[in-house]
């Protein structure tokens, strides 16, 4: 489902190109670097998140994406290790995989996972690992679809994003970083979605870990 490659850009400190179904994003991380005066925080790492859309110019839609990504990444960064420093995280959507006017779940989902790998690639300290999954609920029997296709997505009654902090090599769920649900659903559906998404999140975490292992092997290639 997910294919990812780290270290695809060389002008930045960390990068990752991630494809999840029809959605492809590329993420870059630079930091810790010297911030501009207005960005600087006295005791911790400042975070600059930039999302650029596939088509057209960035507007409020991308600002909301940036805000959501920031909400996920901020609690995970070991930000007190780098006071008065800046970390830039940029995303370029290469293929959206969803109608951009109406949805942003697939992009958000891919961005969060790509951010994890790019952060790992950059060596910016993280308190833990995290992963994200996108789920939609379809039809009268409330079928739960993990990482729906565009076709499934637009027919769904509700869409959900779950991002979790995952520990111990993807075996343990430590914390909820983000739940965001939209559409029309009930409490029961939501709790079903959450328990299904939780499992899927762990699976994603294991897949991301493979990309991390790949990266580490490539990092120390001269040792072979």
């Amino acid at each position: 489902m997910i294919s990812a490659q780290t270290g695809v850009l060389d002008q930045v400190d960390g990068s990752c190109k991630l494809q999840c179904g029809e959605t492809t994003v590329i993420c870059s991380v630079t930091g810790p670097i010297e911030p501009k005066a207005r960005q600087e925080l006295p005791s911790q790492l400042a975070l600059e998140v930039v999302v650029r859309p596939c088509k057209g110019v960035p507007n409020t839609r991308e600002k909301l994406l940036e805000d959501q990504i920031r909400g996920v990444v901020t609690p995970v960064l070991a930000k007190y290790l780098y006071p008065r420093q800046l970390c830039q995280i940029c995303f370029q959507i290469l293929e959206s995989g969803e109608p951009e006017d109406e949805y942003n779940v697939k992009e958000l989902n891919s961005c969060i996972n790509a951010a994890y790998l790019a952060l790992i690639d950059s060596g910016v300290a993280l308190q833990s690992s995290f992963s994200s999954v996108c789920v939609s609920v379809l039809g009268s029997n409330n079928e739960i679809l993990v990482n729906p296709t565009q076709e499934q997505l637009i027919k769904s009654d509700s869409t959900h994003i779950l991002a979790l902090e995952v520990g111990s090599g993807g075996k343990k769920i430590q914390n909820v970083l983000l739940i965001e649900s939209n559409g029309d659903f009930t409490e029961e559906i939501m709790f079903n979605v959450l328990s299904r998404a939780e499992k899927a999140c762990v699976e994603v975490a294991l897949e991301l870990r493979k990309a991390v292992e790949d990266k580490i092997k490539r990092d120390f290639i001269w040792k072979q």
Partner: protein
Amino acid sequence: MNTLIAPGDKLDIADKENVVIGPGVYCDPRTQEIRPVNAGFEVIGSTKKNLSIRVDHNSKRYIPAVGDLVVGLITGSFSDSYRVSLASFSSPVTLSYMAFPNASKKNRPSLKVGDLVYARVCKADKELEAEIECVDSTTGKDAGFGLLDGGMVADVSLAFSRELTFNNEYPLLTLLAKNAQFEIAIGINGKVWIKCDDVKSTLACYRSINDCQSHPSAEHKFIISQHFKAVTNSVQ
């Protein structure tokens, strides 16, 4: 074999007492919990009293730590110090005019903006600007630091520069030495300065160092010979 580890994993240590934590490991100030913050190989070492733990990982962005030998670029000069860059876009570090051998108020060092220096990090608090010195501060004497004149700088990954510095068995430098005579200064900040007698050899060394980063050590010999062949065969 060292195990692979990623942030959020459990460290392979039972006892939290007497643990010295190294790079890639973080102790939460509130919970006193020790956890890895980078992805890499878990390295546990033990001395008589202590257990040391670190995560060997590779990255590009250098963060100053006391004792590191670095190659810096002078980017500005003030009334009593130079401003030095250890990596583009990183916060600059300070090199005091007094941190040179035989320094005195009257004897100002003569470095210019754009010059390269080889130096040692002497202060690195994360809240403050780091400082470097070009003198062995214990003896106050020259210790091979100072201006790096001419030559060329190769940008390498941080793990690679550590390998070059600390692993005496790593064959790259030995192999290079068979092809040319050179001066070298390896900065832990991922900057390797190299200088041969002629430009062509320097260029061959520069290309070799860049290339060997992304190839297994078994191929190093071949890579190096190819690069030296290329520069000698090039027509004027």
